[in-house]
Protein backbone atom coordinates (compact mmCIF):
# COMPACT_ATOMS: atom_id res chain seq x y z
CA UNK A 1 0.00 0.00 0.00
CA UNK A 2 2.76 2.44 0.93
CA UNK A 3 5.99 2.78 -0.99
CA UNK A 4 9.18 2.43 1.11
CA UNK A 5 10.19 6.04 0.39
CA UNK A 6 6.88 7.38 1.64
CA UNK A 7 6.98 5.23 4.77
CA UNK A 8 10.39 6.63 5.55
CA UNK A 9 9.17 10.17 5.03
CA UNK A 10 6.35 9.69 7.49
CA UNK A 11 8.61 8.05 10.04
CA UNK A 12 10.99 10.99 9.76
CA UNK A 13 8.21 13.44 10.62
CA UNK A 14 6.60 11.30 13.31
CA UNK A 15 9.83 10.63 15.17
CA UNK A 16 9.51 13.92 17.08
CA UNK A 17 6.63 14.79 19.40
CA UNK A 18 3.55 16.25 17.71
CA UNK A 19 3.04 20.01 17.97
CA UNK A 20 -0.71 19.56 17.76
CA UNK A 21 -2.46 16.35 18.78
CA UNK A 22 -6.16 16.04 18.07
CA UNK A 23 -7.89 13.04 19.60
CA UNK A 24 -11.44 11.87 18.97
CA UNK A 25 -12.55 15.44 18.46
CA UNK A 26 -16.35 15.68 18.28
CA UNK A 27 -18.77 18.55 17.84
CA UNK A 28 -22.53 18.13 17.83
CA UNK A 29 -25.04 20.88 17.12
CA UNK A 30 -28.15 19.51 18.79
CA UNK A 31 -28.75 16.19 17.06
CA UNK A 32 -26.45 16.97 14.15
CA UNK A 33 -22.92 15.69 14.58
CA UNK A 34 -20.75 18.01 12.47
CA UNK A 35 -17.44 16.43 13.46
CA UNK A 36 -17.16 12.88 14.83
CA UNK A 37 -14.15 11.28 16.52
CA UNK A 38 -11.56 13.03 14.38
CA UNK A 39 -7.94 12.30 15.35
CA UNK A 40 -4.77 13.58 13.70
CA UNK A 41 -1.39 15.03 14.61
CA UNK A 42 0.59 17.91 13.18
CA UNK A 43 4.37 17.80 13.67
CA UNK A 44 6.78 20.73 13.97
CA UNK A 45 7.60 22.15 10.54
CA UNK A 46 4.94 20.06 8.86
CA UNK A 47 2.33 21.25 6.38
CA UNK A 48 -0.85 19.31 7.03
CA UNK A 49 -3.76 19.62 4.61
CA UNK A 50 -7.37 19.11 5.62
CA UNK A 51 -9.63 18.56 2.63
CA UNK A 52 -13.13 17.37 2.04
CA UNK A 53 -16.36 18.27 0.25
CA UNK A 54 -18.46 21.26 1.32
CA UNK A 55 -20.06 20.71 4.71
CA UNK A 56 -17.56 18.02 5.70
CA UNK A 57 -16.73 19.86 8.95
CA UNK A 58 -13.38 21.43 8.05
CA UNK A 59 -14.18 24.93 9.30
CA UNK A 60 -15.80 23.45 12.43
CA UNK A 61 -12.48 21.71 13.18
CA UNK A 62 -10.54 24.97 12.67
CA UNK A 63 -12.97 26.87 14.90
CA UNK A 64 -12.53 24.30 17.66
CA UNK A 65 -8.74 24.37 17.35
CA UNK A 66 -8.65 28.17 17.63
CA UNK A 67 -11.03 28.19 20.60
CA UNK A 68 -14.00 29.93 19.00
CA UNK A 69 -16.17 26.83 19.34
CA UNK A 70 -15.99 24.47 22.33
CA UNK A 71 -15.79 20.79 21.34
CA UNK A 72 -18.49 18.48 22.68
CA UNK A 73 -15.99 15.63 22.95
CA UNK A 74 -12.36 14.67 22.52
CA UNK A 75 -9.14 16.47 23.35
CA UNK A 76 -6.80 18.93 21.66
CA UNK A 77 -3.21 19.18 22.86
CA UNK A 78 -0.97 21.98 21.60
CA UNK A 79 2.67 22.32 22.68
CA UNK A 80 2.00 19.84 25.48
CA UNK A 81 -1.00 21.72 26.88
CA UNK A 82 -4.68 20.84 26.68
CA UNK A 83 -6.38 23.68 24.78
CA UNK A 84 -9.85 22.23 24.21
CA UNK A 85 -11.29 24.18 27.15
CA UNK A 86 -8.98 27.19 26.90
CA UNK A 87 -10.30 30.65 25.93
CA UNK A 88 -9.36 31.72 22.40
CA UNK A 89 -7.05 34.55 23.45
CA UNK A 90 -4.90 32.20 25.54
CA UNK A 91 -4.66 29.70 22.69
CA UNK A 92 -3.48 32.55 20.47
CA UNK A 93 -0.92 33.59 23.08
CA UNK A 94 0.38 29.99 23.18
CA UNK A 95 1.31 30.36 19.52
CA UNK A 96 -1.65 29.22 17.48
CA UNK A 97 -2.73 31.75 14.88
CA UNK A 98 -5.32 31.66 12.11
CA UNK A 99 -6.86 33.26 9.06
CA UNK A 100 -10.49 33.13 8.01
CA UNK A 101 -12.28 31.74 4.97
CA UNK A 102 -14.28 34.96 4.65
CA UNK A 103 -11.61 37.56 5.38
CA UNK A 104 -12.08 39.18 8.78
CA UNK A 105 -9.85 42.20 8.96
CA UNK A 106 -10.40 45.19 11.24
CA UNK A 107 -11.73 47.25 8.34
CA UNK A 108 -11.76 50.75 9.83
CA UNK A 109 -8.23 50.38 11.21
CA UNK A 110 -5.17 51.04 9.09
CA UNK A 111 -3.24 48.25 7.40
CA UNK A 112 -0.37 48.88 9.81
CA UNK A 113 -2.65 48.87 12.87
CA UNK A 114 -4.07 45.50 11.82
CA UNK A 115 -0.59 43.99 11.94
CA UNK A 116 0.21 45.78 15.24
CA UNK A 117 -2.97 44.31 16.78
CA UNK A 118 -1.73 40.91 15.63
CA UNK A 119 1.17 41.37 18.06
CA UNK A 120 -1.16 42.07 21.00
CA UNK A 121 -0.19 38.97 22.98
CA UNK A 122 3.53 39.70 22.55
CA UNK A 123 3.27 43.18 24.03
CA UNK A 124 3.50 43.77 27.76
CA UNK A 125 3.57 47.48 28.54
CA UNK A 126 0.56 48.72 30.49
CA UNK A 127 -1.57 51.79 30.02
CA UNK A 128 -0.29 53.15 33.34
CA UNK A 129 3.24 53.19 31.94
CA UNK A 130 1.98 54.98 28.85
CA UNK A 131 0.32 57.67 31.00
CA UNK A 132 3.70 58.59 32.47
CA UNK A 133 5.53 58.40 29.10
CA UNK A 134 7.62 55.43 30.20
CA UNK A 135 10.45 54.80 27.70
CA UNK A 136 9.69 51.07 27.81
CA UNK A 137 6.31 51.70 26.22
CA UNK A 138 7.84 53.82 23.49
CA UNK A 139 10.46 51.18 22.73
CA UNK A 140 7.86 48.43 22.65
CA UNK A 141 5.51 50.38 20.39
CA UNK A 142 8.38 51.34 18.09
CA UNK A 143 9.47 47.68 17.90
CA UNK A 144 5.91 46.56 17.14
CA UNK A 145 5.65 49.17 14.40
CA UNK A 146 8.94 48.16 12.84
CA UNK A 147 8.02 44.48 12.97
CA UNK A 148 4.65 45.27 11.39
CA UNK A 149 6.36 47.20 8.60
CA UNK A 150 8.75 44.32 7.96
CA UNK A 151 5.84 41.90 7.69
CA UNK A 152 4.04 44.32 5.36
CA UNK A 153 7.14 44.57 3.18
CA UNK A 154 7.29 40.79 2.95
CA UNK A 155 3.64 40.79 1.95
CA UNK A 156 4.22 43.57 -0.57
CA UNK A 157 1.88 45.93 1.26
CA UNK A 158 4.32 48.43 2.79
CA UNK A 159 3.19 51.26 0.50
CA UNK A 160 -0.41 50.78 1.69
CA UNK A 161 0.43 50.84 5.42
CA UNK A 162 -1.61 53.93 6.26
CA UNK A 163 -4.69 52.96 4.22
CA UNK A 164 -7.77 51.63 6.01
CA UNK A 165 -7.80 47.85 5.66
CA UNK A 166 -11.26 47.92 4.08
CA UNK A 167 -9.92 50.00 1.17
CA UNK A 168 -7.61 47.19 0.02
CA UNK A 169 -8.29 45.04 -3.05
CA UNK A 170 -9.36 41.47 -2.34
CA UNK A 171 -5.99 39.84 -3.00
CA UNK A 172 -4.25 42.40 -0.80
CA UNK A 173 -6.76 41.80 1.99
CA UNK A 174 -5.83 38.11 1.88
CA UNK A 175 -2.15 39.01 2.06
CA UNK A 176 -2.81 41.39 4.94
CA UNK A 177 -4.72 38.74 6.87
CA UNK A 178 -1.75 36.40 6.51
CA UNK A 179 0.64 39.14 7.67
CA UNK A 180 -1.60 39.84 10.69
CA UNK A 181 -1.70 36.14 11.58
CA UNK A 182 2.10 35.92 11.34
CA UNK A 183 2.58 39.00 13.51
CA UNK A 184 2.09 37.07 16.73
CA UNK A 185 5.06 34.85 15.87
CA UNK A 186 3.01 31.63 15.91
CA UNK A 187 4.19 28.02 16.07
CA UNK A 188 1.19 26.79 14.16
CA UNK A 189 -0.80 28.69 11.58
CA UNK A 190 -4.32 27.59 10.63
CA UNK A 191 -5.29 28.69 7.14
CA UNK A 192 -8.98 28.39 6.27
CA UNK A 193 -9.15 28.31 2.46
CA UNK A 194 -6.32 30.79 1.90
CA UNK A 195 -6.63 30.53 -1.91
CA UNK A 196 -10.39 31.14 -2.06
CA UNK A 197 -11.17 33.59 -4.84
CA UNK A 198 -7.61 33.58 -6.21
CA UNK A 199 -6.67 32.86 -9.81
CA UNK A 200 -4.08 30.20 -10.73
CA UNK A 201 -1.11 32.57 -10.71
CA UNK A 202 -2.07 34.12 -7.37
CA UNK A 203 -2.62 30.75 -5.73
CA UNK A 204 0.76 29.58 -7.03
CA UNK A 205 2.43 32.64 -5.51
CA UNK A 206 0.61 31.89 -2.24
CA UNK A 207 1.89 28.31 -2.38
CA UNK A 208 5.47 29.56 -2.74
CA UNK A 209 5.03 31.95 0.19
CA UNK A 210 3.57 29.23 2.42
CA UNK A 211 6.33 26.81 1.44
CA UNK A 212 8.93 29.42 2.45
CA UNK A 213 7.21 29.85 5.82
CA UNK A 214 7.17 26.08 6.40
CA UNK A 215 10.87 25.84 5.53
CA UNK A 216 11.46 28.51 8.16
CA UNK A 217 10.07 26.04 10.72
CA UNK A 218 6.44 27.15 10.94
CA UNK A 219 3.81 24.39 11.03
CA UNK A 220 0.78 24.89 8.83
CA UNK A 221 -2.67 23.40 8.90
CA UNK A 222 -4.34 24.21 5.59
CA UNK A 223 -8.00 23.78 4.76
CA UNK A 224 -8.29 24.15 1.02
CA UNK A 225 -10.34 23.31 -2.06
CA UNK A 226 -7.63 24.10 -4.60
CA UNK A 227 -6.40 20.55 -5.22
CA UNK A 228 -3.22 21.48 -7.07
CA UNK A 229 -2.20 23.82 -4.23
CA UNK A 230 -2.86 21.16 -1.58
CA UNK A 231 -1.06 18.46 -3.52
CA UNK A 232 2.04 20.55 -4.12
CA UNK A 233 2.15 22.17 -0.67
CA UNK A 234 1.23 19.56 1.93
CA UNK A 235 3.41 16.89 3.52
CA UNK A 236 0.38 14.98 4.66
CA UNK A 237 -3.33 15.27 4.01
CA UNK A 238 -6.38 14.26 6.03
CA UNK A 239 -9.72 13.87 4.29
CA UNK A 240 -12.98 14.73 6.04
CA UNK A 241 -16.36 13.53 4.81
CA UNK A 242 -19.61 14.01 6.74
CA UNK A 243 -17.60 14.86 9.85
CA UNK A 244 -15.43 11.74 9.77
CA UNK A 245 -11.76 11.50 8.90
CA UNK A 246 -11.94 8.91 6.11
CA UNK A 247 -8.32 8.90 4.96
CA UNK A 248 -4.91 10.23 5.88
CA UNK A 249 -1.59 10.05 4.06
CA UNK A 250 0.81 11.67 1.65
CA UNK A 251 -0.61 13.54 -1.34
CA UNK A 252 0.14 10.60 -3.67
CA UNK A 253 -1.66 8.14 -1.41
CA UNK A 254 -4.65 10.43 -1.05
CA UNK A 255 -4.91 10.92 -4.80
CA UNK A 256 -5.15 7.13 -5.22
CA UNK A 257 -7.46 6.40 -2.29
CA UNK A 258 -10.75 4.92 -3.55
CA UNK A 259 -12.71 6.30 -0.56
CA UNK A 260 -11.48 9.81 -1.28
CA UNK A 261 -12.33 9.53 -4.94
CA UNK A 262 -15.79 8.32 -4.00
CA UNK A 263 -16.33 11.16 -1.53
CA UNK A 264 -15.40 13.77 -4.11
CA UNK A 265 -16.80 12.27 -7.30
CA UNK A 266 -19.39 9.77 -6.07
CA UNK A 267 -19.17 6.01 -6.67
CA UNK A 268 -19.98 4.23 -9.94
CA UNK A 269 -23.30 2.98 -8.67
Amino acid at each position, binding site marked *: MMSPVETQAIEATTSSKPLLAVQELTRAFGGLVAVRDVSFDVYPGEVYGLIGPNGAGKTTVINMLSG*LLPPTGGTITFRGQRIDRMP*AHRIAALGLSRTYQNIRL*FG*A*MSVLQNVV*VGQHARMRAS*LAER*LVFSPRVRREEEAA*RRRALTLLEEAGLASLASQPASALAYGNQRRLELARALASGPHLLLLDEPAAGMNAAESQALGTRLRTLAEGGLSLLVVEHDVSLVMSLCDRIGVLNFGNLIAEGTPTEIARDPQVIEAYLGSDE
Partner: protein
Amino acid sequence: MSEFYNANSFLISLVGINAIMALSIYITLSCAMLSLSNAASMAIGAYTAALLTQQLAWALWPAVVAGALMSGLVALVLGLPIMRLSGVFLAIATLGFGEVIRIAIVNIDALGGSEGFRLNSGDRTIEASGWEVYGVLLLIAYFFSRLKGSRMSLALQAIREDENAARTMGINVTFYKVAAYVTGAIVAGIAGALYAHLRSFISPGDFGFQRAVDVLVFAVVGGTLAWRGAIMGAVLMTLLPEAIRVVPIVGGFNIKDQPEIFSGVILLAVILFLPNGLLTVALSLNRIRRPARKVIGHKEASP
Protein backbone atom coordinates in the same frame (compact mmCIF):
# COMPACT_ATOMS: atom_id res chain seq x y z
CA MET B 1 -14.55 88.30 31.71
CA SER B 2 -15.08 87.56 35.39
CA GLU B 3 -18.44 89.28 35.19
CA PHE B 4 -19.43 86.96 32.35
CA TYR B 5 -18.24 83.98 34.40
CA ASN B 6 -20.18 85.07 37.45
CA ALA B 7 -23.35 85.46 35.45
CA ASN B 8 -22.99 82.08 33.74
CA SER B 9 -20.82 80.11 36.14
CA PHE B 10 -23.27 77.26 36.60
CA LEU B 11 -23.78 76.82 32.85
CA ILE B 12 -20.04 76.99 32.16
CA SER B 13 -19.37 74.34 34.79
CA LEU B 14 -22.25 72.23 33.50
CA VAL B 15 -20.60 72.16 30.07
CA GLY B 16 -17.53 70.67 31.75
CA ILE B 17 -19.58 68.11 33.70
CA ASN B 18 -21.40 67.06 30.54
CA ALA B 19 -18.11 66.76 28.67
CA ILE B 20 -16.85 64.38 31.38
CA MET B 21 -20.10 62.40 31.09
CA ALA B 22 -19.74 62.23 27.30
CA LEU B 23 -16.21 60.84 27.72
CA SER B 24 -17.57 58.24 30.13
CA ILE B 25 -19.88 56.83 27.46
CA TYR B 26 -17.32 57.29 24.68
CA ILE B 27 -15.06 54.60 26.13
CA THR B 28 -17.76 51.92 26.13
CA LEU B 29 -18.94 52.97 22.67
CA SER B 30 -15.36 52.69 21.44
CA CYS B 31 -15.61 48.92 21.80
CA ALA B 32 -19.17 48.77 20.45
CA MET B 33 -20.87 48.40 23.84
CA LEU B 34 -24.09 50.33 24.10
CA SER B 35 -24.19 50.87 27.86
CA LEU B 36 -26.82 53.21 29.29
CA SER B 37 -25.92 53.06 32.97
CA ASN B 38 -23.74 56.18 32.96
CA ALA B 39 -26.46 58.24 34.65
CA ALA B 40 -26.64 55.64 37.43
CA SER B 41 -22.85 55.66 37.82
CA MET B 42 -23.06 59.44 38.05
CA ALA B 43 -25.68 59.08 40.80
CA ILE B 44 -23.50 56.66 42.78
CA GLY B 45 -20.56 59.08 42.57
CA ALA B 46 -22.77 62.04 43.49
CA TYR B 47 -24.47 60.48 46.53
CA THR B 48 -21.30 58.80 47.82
CA ALA B 49 -19.30 62.02 47.68
CA ALA B 50 -22.17 64.10 49.08
CA LEU B 51 -22.61 61.78 52.07
CA LEU B 52 -18.89 61.85 52.78
CA THR B 53 -18.51 65.62 52.71
CA GLN B 54 -21.79 66.33 54.53
CA GLN B 55 -22.07 63.55 57.11
CA LEU B 56 -18.43 62.64 57.68
CA ALA B 57 -16.91 66.06 56.96
CA TRP B 58 -14.49 64.80 54.33
CA ALA B 59 -12.73 67.31 52.10
CA LEU B 60 -13.82 67.61 48.47
CA TRP B 61 -11.02 65.69 46.72
CA PRO B 62 -11.00 62.56 48.87
CA ALA B 63 -14.79 62.47 48.50
CA VAL B 64 -14.56 62.76 44.70
CA VAL B 65 -12.05 59.91 44.60
CA ALA B 66 -14.23 57.79 46.91
CA GLY B 67 -17.31 58.50 44.79
CA ALA B 68 -15.44 57.48 41.64
CA LEU B 69 -14.15 54.29 43.28
CA MET B 70 -17.57 53.35 44.62
CA SER B 71 -19.08 53.82 41.18
CA GLY B 72 -16.29 51.73 39.64
CA LEU B 73 -16.74 49.00 42.23
CA VAL B 74 -20.47 48.70 41.61
CA ALA B 75 -19.79 48.59 37.86
CA LEU B 76 -17.21 45.85 38.37
CA VAL B 77 -19.57 43.67 40.41
CA LEU B 78 -22.36 44.27 37.92
CA GLY B 79 -20.12 44.25 34.86
CA LEU B 80 -18.80 40.73 35.19
CA PRO B 81 -22.19 39.03 34.68
CA ILE B 82 -23.63 41.43 32.11
CA MET B 83 -20.59 41.53 29.83
CA ARG B 84 -21.90 38.34 28.26
CA LEU B 85 -24.64 40.45 26.72
CA SER B 86 -24.20 42.60 23.68
CA GLY B 87 -26.13 44.98 21.47
CA VAL B 88 -29.68 45.78 22.49
CA PHE B 89 -29.62 43.24 25.33
CA LEU B 90 -26.73 45.03 26.98
CA ALA B 91 -28.52 48.35 26.48
CA ILE B 92 -31.65 47.03 28.21
CA ALA B 93 -29.73 45.42 31.08
CA THR B 94 -27.74 48.60 31.77
CA LEU B 95 -30.88 50.71 31.48
CA GLY B 96 -32.50 48.41 34.04
CA PHE B 97 -29.48 48.85 36.30
CA GLY B 98 -29.96 52.61 36.00
CA GLU B 99 -33.61 52.39 37.04
CA VAL B 100 -32.78 50.12 39.97
CA ILE B 101 -30.28 52.66 41.29
CA ARG B 102 -32.73 55.54 40.82
CA ILE B 103 -35.58 53.73 42.55
CA ALA B 104 -33.27 52.60 45.34
CA ILE B 105 -32.33 56.21 46.03
CA VAL B 106 -36.00 57.25 46.02
CA ASN B 107 -36.62 54.70 48.78
CA ILE B 108 -33.62 55.41 50.99
CA ASP B 109 -34.55 58.08 53.52
CA ALA B 110 -30.94 58.72 54.51
CA LEU B 111 -30.35 59.91 50.95
CA GLY B 112 -33.31 62.24 51.04
CA GLY B 113 -35.58 59.96 49.03
CA SER B 114 -37.49 61.56 46.18
CA GLU B 115 -37.24 64.93 47.93
CA GLY B 116 -33.59 65.09 47.08
CA PHE B 117 -30.45 65.65 49.12
CA ARG B 118 -29.42 69.17 50.08
CA LEU B 119 -25.73 69.87 50.56
CA ASN B 120 -24.14 72.69 52.54
CA SER B 121 -27.22 73.50 54.61
CA GLY B 122 -25.10 73.87 57.77
CA ASP B 123 -22.31 76.36 58.43
CA ARG B 124 -19.60 74.26 56.76
CA THR B 125 -19.64 74.67 52.99
CA ILE B 126 -17.87 72.34 50.58
CA GLU B 127 -18.38 73.38 47.01
CA ALA B 128 -16.90 72.75 43.61
CA SER B 129 -16.50 75.48 41.03
CA GLY B 130 -15.62 75.73 37.37
CA TRP B 131 -11.93 75.54 38.25
CA GLU B 132 -12.30 72.13 39.82
CA VAL B 133 -14.51 70.88 37.01
CA TYR B 134 -12.21 72.02 34.23
CA GLY B 135 -9.09 70.85 36.06
CA VAL B 136 -10.58 67.38 36.29
CA LEU B 137 -11.77 67.52 32.68
CA LEU B 138 -8.22 68.37 31.65
CA LEU B 139 -6.86 65.38 33.58
CA ILE B 140 -9.43 63.05 32.03
CA ALA B 141 -8.74 64.47 28.56
CA TYR B 142 -5.07 63.76 29.18
CA PHE B 143 -5.96 60.16 30.03
CA PHE B 144 -7.90 59.79 26.78
CA SER B 145 -5.17 61.40 24.70
CA ARG B 146 -2.65 58.89 26.08
CA LEU B 147 -5.12 56.04 25.63
CA LYS B 148 -5.31 56.79 21.92
CA GLY B 149 -2.92 54.63 19.93
CA SER B 150 -2.12 52.48 22.97
CA ARG B 151 -2.26 48.70 23.05
CA MET B 152 -5.54 48.93 24.98
CA SER B 153 -7.11 51.38 22.55
CA LEU B 154 -6.11 49.21 19.56
CA ALA B 155 -7.62 46.21 21.35
CA LEU B 156 -10.87 48.12 21.97
CA GLN B 157 -11.00 49.14 18.31
CA ALA B 158 -10.37 45.55 17.22
CA ILE B 159 -13.21 44.37 19.49
CA ARG B 160 -15.46 47.03 17.98
CA GLU B 161 -14.65 45.78 14.47
CA ASP B 162 -14.82 42.01 14.99
CA GLU B 163 -14.98 40.44 18.41
CA ASN B 164 -14.09 36.89 17.43
CA ALA B 165 -11.24 37.92 15.17
CA ALA B 166 -9.95 40.00 18.09
CA ARG B 167 -10.09 36.91 20.34
CA THR B 168 -7.97 34.90 17.94
CA MET B 169 -5.43 37.75 17.88
CA GLY B 170 -4.81 37.07 21.57
CA ILE B 171 -7.06 39.85 22.89
CA ASN B 172 -8.84 39.03 26.14
CA VAL B 173 -12.20 40.45 25.05
CA THR B 174 -13.99 40.00 28.39
CA PHE B 175 -11.18 41.74 30.26
CA TYR B 176 -11.16 44.75 27.95
CA LYS B 177 -14.93 45.06 27.95
CA VAL B 178 -15.08 45.01 31.73
CA ALA B 179 -12.14 47.44 31.87
CA ALA B 180 -13.92 49.83 29.48
CA TYR B 181 -17.17 49.53 31.41
CA VAL B 182 -15.53 50.15 34.79
CA THR B 183 -13.46 53.05 33.44
CA GLY B 184 -16.63 54.62 32.07
CA ALA B 185 -18.31 54.22 35.45
CA ILE B 186 -15.37 55.77 37.29
CA VAL B 187 -15.35 58.76 34.95
CA ALA B 188 -19.12 59.17 35.38
CA GLY B 189 -18.70 58.84 39.14
CA ILE B 190 -16.21 61.73 39.13
CA ALA B 191 -18.67 63.84 37.14
CA GLY B 192 -21.42 62.99 39.65
CA ALA B 193 -19.32 63.87 42.68
CA LEU B 194 -18.41 67.26 41.18
CA TYR B 195 -21.98 67.88 40.05
CA ALA B 196 -23.33 67.35 43.58
CA HIS B 197 -20.92 69.93 45.01
CA LEU B 198 -21.50 72.31 42.16
CA ARG B 199 -25.27 72.39 42.57
CA SER B 200 -25.46 71.72 46.31
CA PHE B 201 -28.61 69.77 45.63
CA ILE B 202 -29.16 66.37 44.05
CA SER B 203 -32.27 64.31 43.55
CA PRO B 204 -32.99 60.94 41.93
CA GLY B 205 -34.62 62.76 39.01
CA ASP B 206 -31.24 64.23 38.04
CA PHE B 207 -29.99 60.76 37.19
CA GLY B 208 -32.92 59.19 35.39
CA PHE B 209 -33.61 57.97 31.88
CA GLN B 210 -33.47 61.48 30.42
CA ARG B 211 -29.91 61.95 31.67
CA ALA B 212 -28.86 58.55 30.27
CA VAL B 213 -30.21 59.47 26.85
CA ASP B 214 -28.72 62.99 26.96
CA VAL B 215 -25.26 61.56 27.58
CA LEU B 216 -25.65 59.15 24.67
CA VAL B 217 -26.78 62.05 22.48
CA PHE B 218 -23.64 64.06 23.40
CA ALA B 219 -21.43 61.23 22.19
CA VAL B 220 -23.44 60.47 19.05
CA VAL B 221 -23.77 64.12 18.02
CA GLY B 222 -20.05 64.66 18.63
CA GLY B 223 -18.97 61.45 16.94
CA THR B 224 -17.62 58.25 18.46
CA LEU B 225 -14.47 57.81 16.36
CA ALA B 226 -12.32 59.98 18.63
CA TRP B 227 -12.61 61.28 22.18
CA ARG B 228 -12.57 64.90 21.01
CA GLY B 229 -15.94 64.24 19.41
CA ALA B 230 -17.57 63.44 22.74
CA ILE B 231 -16.44 66.78 24.17
CA MET B 232 -17.60 68.69 21.09
CA GLY B 233 -21.01 67.04 21.32
CA ALA B 234 -21.37 67.84 25.01
CA VAL B 235 -20.47 71.50 24.48
CA LEU B 236 -22.90 71.94 21.60
CA MET B 237 -25.81 70.08 23.16
CA THR B 238 -25.43 71.84 26.53
CA LEU B 239 -25.28 75.33 25.08
CA LEU B 240 -27.96 74.83 22.46
CA PRO B 241 -30.95 74.94 24.85
CA GLU B 242 -29.56 78.25 26.13
CA ALA B 243 -29.15 79.57 22.61
CA ILE B 244 -32.76 78.83 21.70
CA ARG B 245 -33.97 81.06 24.50
CA VAL B 246 -33.69 83.88 21.99
CA VAL B 247 -36.24 82.19 19.70
CA PRO B 248 -39.46 84.22 19.95
CA ILE B 249 -42.69 82.71 21.18
CA VAL B 250 -44.82 81.91 18.15
CA GLY B 251 -48.54 81.18 18.47
CA GLY B 252 -48.32 80.49 22.18
CA PHE B 253 -45.70 77.74 21.61
CA ASN B 254 -42.59 78.44 23.62
CA ILE B 255 -39.76 76.26 22.37
CA LYS B 256 -37.57 77.03 25.37
CA ASP B 257 -39.91 74.91 27.48
CA GLN B 258 -39.32 72.01 25.11
CA PRO B 259 -35.56 71.82 24.58
CA GLU B 260 -35.90 68.04 24.06
CA ILE B 261 -37.59 68.70 20.73
CA PHE B 262 -34.59 70.70 19.64
CA SER B 263 -32.17 68.00 20.81
CA GLY B 264 -34.20 65.40 18.94
CA VAL B 265 -34.07 67.36 15.70
CA ILE B 266 -30.31 67.90 16.02
CA LEU B 267 -29.76 64.19 16.78
CA LEU B 268 -31.81 63.17 13.74
CA ALA B 269 -29.97 65.62 11.49
CA VAL B 270 -26.59 64.40 12.69
CA ILE B 271 -27.47 60.74 12.21
CA LEU B 272 -28.77 61.44 8.70
CA PHE B 273 -26.16 63.86 7.43
CA LEU B 274 -23.05 63.46 9.61
CA PRO B 275 -22.53 59.74 10.26
CA ASN B 276 -19.44 60.47 12.36
CA GLY B 277 -21.03 63.38 14.15
CA LEU B 278 -19.37 66.75 14.46
CA LEU B 279 -16.09 64.90 13.97
CA THR B 280 -17.03 64.48 10.31
CA VAL B 281 -16.66 68.23 9.91
CA ALA B 282 -13.39 68.35 11.84
CA LEU B 283 -11.98 65.41 9.91
CA SER B 284 -12.79 66.84 6.49
CA LEU B 285 -11.29 70.19 7.50
CA ASN B 286 -8.15 68.29 8.49
CA ARG B 287 -8.09 66.54 5.16
CA ILE B 288 -8.29 69.82 3.28
CA ARG B 289 -5.41 71.24 5.27
CA ARG B 290 -3.18 68.18 5.18
CA PRO B 291 -4.40 66.04 2.28
CA ALA B 292 -1.68 63.40 2.43
CA ARG B 293 -1.88 62.59 6.10
CA LYS B 294 -4.04 60.03 7.74
CA VAL B 295 -6.37 61.58 10.25
CA ILE B 296 -7.00 58.89 12.79
CA GLY B 297 -4.67 56.30 14.13
CA HIS B 298 -1.02 55.55 13.76
CA LYS B 299 1.67 57.78 12.45
CA GLU B 300 2.30 57.38 8.77
CA ALA B 301 4.55 54.61 7.54
CA SER B 302 8.03 55.84 6.80
CA PRO B 303 8.81 55.49 3.10
